[in-house]
């Protein structure tokens, strides 16, 4: 399941819903992205996430399908927030559940790697020094593309 929302989420509640969805689950992997308080020495006051409604949902849904095709996973949850957030706020949640931990762990990492490069979000930081758009990191593209190189694993 995927959700794109302004509201915060409660990881405990989300995980217990995933757990109750299936009795074959042996492991649940999750990742939460958090707004940091500093960019180097420059304090971040707020971070605003802009996104492309419609395309975002489509992209997250496609990523869920890809993960389900590649790993033996019993459930997937992606929750991505948009709007203006503060340091310490939760941005994104990825949860994958499987009978086997390897599938849960790998698919969670796969999803977070691809969200970085493929989900149509743009981050504007309001820092002490002024407004700054967050740049895409080439290391993120590298992290995502290694899943392409490894398709035959």
């Amino acid at each position: 399941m995927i959700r794109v929302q302004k509201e915060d989420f409660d990881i405990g509640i989300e995980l217990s819903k995933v757990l109750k969805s299936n009795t074959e689950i042996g492991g649940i992997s999750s990742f939460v992205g958090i707004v940091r308080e500093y960019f180097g020495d420059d304090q971040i006051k707020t971070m605003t996430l802009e996104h492309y409604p419609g395309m975002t949902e489509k992209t997250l849904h496609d990523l869920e399908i890809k993960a389900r095709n590649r790993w033996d996973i019993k459930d997937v949850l992606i929750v991505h927030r948009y709007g203006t957030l503060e340091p310490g706020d939760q941005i994104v949640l990825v949860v994958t559940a499987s009978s086997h931990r390897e599938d849960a762990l790998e698919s969670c990492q796969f999803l977070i790697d691809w969200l970085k490069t493929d989900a149509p979000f743009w981050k504007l930081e309001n820092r002490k020094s002024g407004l700054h758009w967050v740049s895409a990191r080439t290391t993120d593209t590298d992290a995502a593309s290694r899943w392409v190189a490894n398709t035959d694993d």
Partner: protein
Amino acid sequence: MQVRYFGWVRSRIGISKEEISLPTHIDTIALLIDFLKTRGSGYLQAFEEIENIRAAVNQEIAPHDTKIFEGDEVALFPPMTGG
């Protein structure tokens, strides 16, 4: 054609979407971008680093040589920073 802008492409141009009547010879994303650059300094600034411009046609990522048609929704934006 509806054209949408996001991230610093949007903030440099100053609007988030607009209706463009495509001149008939403008039939790829690359040509659309060249056409938009003639519309003012905001556009020029937005598209100055062409290697950092990503595009979507009807909400699917598309390379710059993709053919575009009058009814399409085209979006232009910087590399995405999700997650």
